[in-house]
């Protein structure tokens, strides 16, 4: 080092000039890189725009395509639902997808609110899909390819976009894997989740008694005590209004009917 840089005061001078040259070089290099990135970004942006414009109809009408598109967006870190404020120009580019999702959100709220009276604010995801299809005038049937149809994934995504509203819309997964949309801002405790799952068991149509809960067994083979069963049911009945009581059953003093599990024609 000493030999290269020389000795004495001259070494200091040379050192300064060298580092200045390095600085210059690195600045120009990074400028080049930024320019390169900018051009890449621009071409990506235009490609994305063209893609979104060209395939707008497909995005709006074909659920499978829409799913793929949103997956692609999320894998490259673009959130089409972030909205103009958070998402910046991304959101503007992909506004067709965002609008579609918001519109679906409005329909979800519409259905959740209008069915709240009969289900207490809990609606099964598949039922919600059925009602939304009905609302949109999409003919019933399992044809996922059909134009304008809505899938459960679409609804889950839309429910997430509703979260800033603070209305408490959430997806609840029951023990048996069924998913429900909850539109009442209440915490479901674990016991209630078990009760909801049980109330939907085939052939039950929402009818539950304390005995039913005492007799059921969890994975560990443990049952509930009578007090726990009564407490959980009374909470649902008195505090949350999620079930109705029938006091005229010939066998049981009190029969609880979980309204969201009752089947109406």
């Amino acid at each position, binding site marked *: 080092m000493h030999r290269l840089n020389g000795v004495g005061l001259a070494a200091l001078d040379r050192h300064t000039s060298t580092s200045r040259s390095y600085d210059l070089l690195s600045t120009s290099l990074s400028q080049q890189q930024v320019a390169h990135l900018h051009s890449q970004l621009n071409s990506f942006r235009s490609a994305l725009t063209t893609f979104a414009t060209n395939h707008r109809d497909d995005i709006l009408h074909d659920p499978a395509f829409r799913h793929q598109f949103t997956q692609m967006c999320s894998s490259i870190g673009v959130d089409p639902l972030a909205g103009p404020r958070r998402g910046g120009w991304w959101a503007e580019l992909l506004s067709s997808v965002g609008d579609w999702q918001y519109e679906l959100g409005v329909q979800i709220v519409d259905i959740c609110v209008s069915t709240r009276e*009969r289900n207490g604010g809990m609606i099964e995801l598949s039922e919600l899909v059925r009602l939304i299809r009905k609302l949109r005038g999409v003919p019933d049937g399992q044809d996922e390819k059909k134009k304008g149809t809505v899938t459960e994934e679409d609804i889950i995504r839309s429910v997430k976009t509703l979260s800033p509203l603070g209305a408490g819309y959430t997806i609840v997964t029951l023990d048996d894997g069924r998913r429900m949309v909850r539109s009442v801002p209440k915490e479901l405790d674990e016991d209630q989740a078990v009760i909801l799952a049980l109330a939907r068991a085939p052939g039950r149509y929402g009818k539950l008694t304390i005995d039913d809960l005492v007799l059921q067994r969890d994975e560990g083979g443990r049952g509930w005590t009578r007090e726990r069963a009564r407490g959980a049911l009374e909470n649902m009945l008195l505090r949350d*209004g999620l079930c109705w009581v*029938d006091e005229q059953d010939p066998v049981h003093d009190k029969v609880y*009917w979980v309204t969201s599990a009752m*089947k109406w024609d």
Partner: protein
Amino acid sequence: MALSTHTTTSGFLLPSIHSAPPFFTQQPHPTSLSIATDQWIQIILKYARHRRLFTIRVQDAETPGNVWDEILRNERINRKLLPSYLSYIFTQMVSRKVAAYDPPKQDRSILIYWRLPEEWAEVLYEWVSSTANMNTIMTFYEITDPPIESPLSALPIPLLRQAIAILAKSNRAQIIAIAEGEGVRFFPTTIKA
């Protein structure tokens, strides 16, 4: 056992909620209670109109074998509306002015307004005018039991009085004391000055 609508022997269409067992018990949760009560009021009003019934009593829910059996009881699921709940429904109907306690000062029996007194006033006035009874003095009996059946046949006297009182306010009727008790005279509407 999905809940479905049901048509009674008198041809009345019961909503599907009427086949839900808990519908017949008074609900403890305020929201559930108001939903169920709204439904009951609708059913009672519609059924009263369907069968031209004007009164319902708590005892109609207590003992079977009366005109209200078709809605107060559901034999298919072995449920009946509990009298205490019916009594609560009465208070709600009275406070919503779709019924009134009759006779007054008790709460076991109500007069059902499946047409409001204002509506009955118009029906009455229409009928008087279409049967050319303007300016003649009529007894209450002639109105509620005419030789040819009319929309006013069997109208309870208290309801008739209210309707006449409403017409009297707009100078379209006047109560007159006559030999057999009371009568009423109707006046054609004068062109408003």
